[in-house]
């Protein structure tokens, strides 16, 4: 996309029928760190890569609980994402108060999309620079939606947004047909494996990712570091070796488990320390 004379105003069309400001807003989403969502018939898992501004700071929160039955993961301008999460929480709680019943996620997503659309049609506003992966339940089961700065929304079985999300999407494309009937544990494992794809070579540690889950009989909550590390340990071998498909014999898996756990428990600054173990 190159700079041109039609891209200053969100309310200016280009001769080819494009709104460049909206498209630039979608670029902002691609710059954020990755967020991944996938769903089965009864559960939705949202996972993201923990990116910190510097070694000194803590990482930014990218996954928010909207209600017991709805969660959202964002990529892009986190400030915009925070504001929209607050809006979603507000809508959800108002619905609960009036109807004593959870707001169906499909309806929340439409409210959100309509709100984003307004910003594409007012000259004094700018589009939200954040993409939202909304996971939630309604009467027909579990759903995953992607809300775009353009005001569009799409439903997905699995999706990834943010930087290096293509790698995750490729992984998900290979596996998504089985997600519908996946067990809860397999769904979590697939989410973490997809996160690993976006890291592209960096060792996967539980400190690098955040995973959340919600389901038909399970309110939205985050998985703690231990639980995530346990899943990582089932497929992560010693860092020097090639990443396999997760088939390792018992002995190797246990030995490999000790090394990443120690590193993760230490400074955990995302460095590539060579494992001290010898095979």
């Amino acid at each position, binding site marked *: 996309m190159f700079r041109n004379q039609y891209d200053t105003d969100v309310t200016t069309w280009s001769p080819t029928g494009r709104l460049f400001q909206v498209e630039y807003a979608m670029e902002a989403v691609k710059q954020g760190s990755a967020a991944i969502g996938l769903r089965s018939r009864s559960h939705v898992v949202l996972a993201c890569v923990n990116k910190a501004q510097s070694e000194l700071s803590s990482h930014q929160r990218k996954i928010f609980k909207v209600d017991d039955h709805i969660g959202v993961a964002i990529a892009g301008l986190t400030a915009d994402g925070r504001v929209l999460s607050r809006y979603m929480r507000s809508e959800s709680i108002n619905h609960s108060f*009036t109807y004593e019943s959870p707001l*169906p996620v*499909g309806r929340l997503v439409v409210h959100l999309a309509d709100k984003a659309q307004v910003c594409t049609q007012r000259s004094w506003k700018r589009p939200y620079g954040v993409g939202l992966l909304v996971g939630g339940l309604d*009467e027909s089961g579990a759903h995953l939606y992607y809300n775009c700065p353009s005001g569009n929304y799409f439903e997905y079985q699995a999706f990834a947004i943010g930087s290096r999300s293509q790698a995750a999407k490729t992984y998900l494309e290979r596996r998504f047909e089985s997600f519908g009937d996946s067990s809860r544990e397999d769904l979590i494992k697939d989410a973490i494996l997809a996160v690993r794809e976006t890291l592209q070579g960096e060792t996967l540690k539980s400190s690098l990712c955040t995973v959340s889950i919600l389901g038909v009989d399970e309110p939205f909550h985050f998985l703690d570091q231990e639980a995530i590390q346990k899943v990582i340990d089932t497929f992560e071998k010693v860092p020097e070796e090639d990443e396999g498909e997760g088939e390792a014999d018992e002995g190797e898996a246990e030995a490999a488990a000790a090394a990443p756990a120690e590193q993760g428990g230490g400074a955990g600054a995302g460095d590539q320390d060579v494992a001290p173990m010898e095979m």
Partner: protein
Amino acid sequence: MTFTIPIDNGDAVKIAEAESQRTLYPYVTGTSIVAIKYKDGVLMASDMGGSYGSTLRYKNIERMQAIGKHSLLGASGEISDFQEILRYLDELTLNDNMWDDGNSLGPKEIHNYLTRVMYNRRNKFNPLWNTLVLGGVKNGKSYLGMVSMIGVSFEDDHVATGFGNHLARPILRDEWHADMSFEDGVKLLEKCMRVLLYRDRSAINKLQIAKITEEGVTVSQPYSLKTFWEFSSFHNPTAGAEGSW
């Protein structure tokens, strides 16, 4: 409040006060509603009378109506306020249908919406002068609840409004049990309605019974109950209290 002031040429001029009009008294009222949960859903009974004070003025008022796909609303109290509530619910269910997304408002949601409406009106000292009974079935689960004009709201296995609270509920407490058949349920409701007919002066002998199940709502044709007036205590009611009537 408005005042009329006669001027020279005899014309009257109305001056409206700044204070907006609030409901102070009900005018055309319906009497009790009685409802129970039974095996397949909910049964509700009401008569078709609309009283204007002590006059039994209107005899063809339907005080029960289907709401959406899953609910049935019955009302006692001011009939015009009931019609207003039906308008609100009509708009609510219309918007719900317009979503066209496989989700729909069930009886629980409608009951809570009504509770909010009634309570908010009460807080403004401008109540909708009704006691509402909301029954329904959704996804196999039966629901029966009540909201009063001051926003008191609760769910139960059997409910009654107005005089029904005093005359019907003791009968229901004794004789209601879970999973009654349709015939038993109707018999129980008719027993309650008969007592109300004898003892509630605003009841008329023309009633309807409505049933709501997973399939939907059916409201029966109006019919009358058989009454018996030859009880010995009815013959000479003032025998024990000379001078009373």
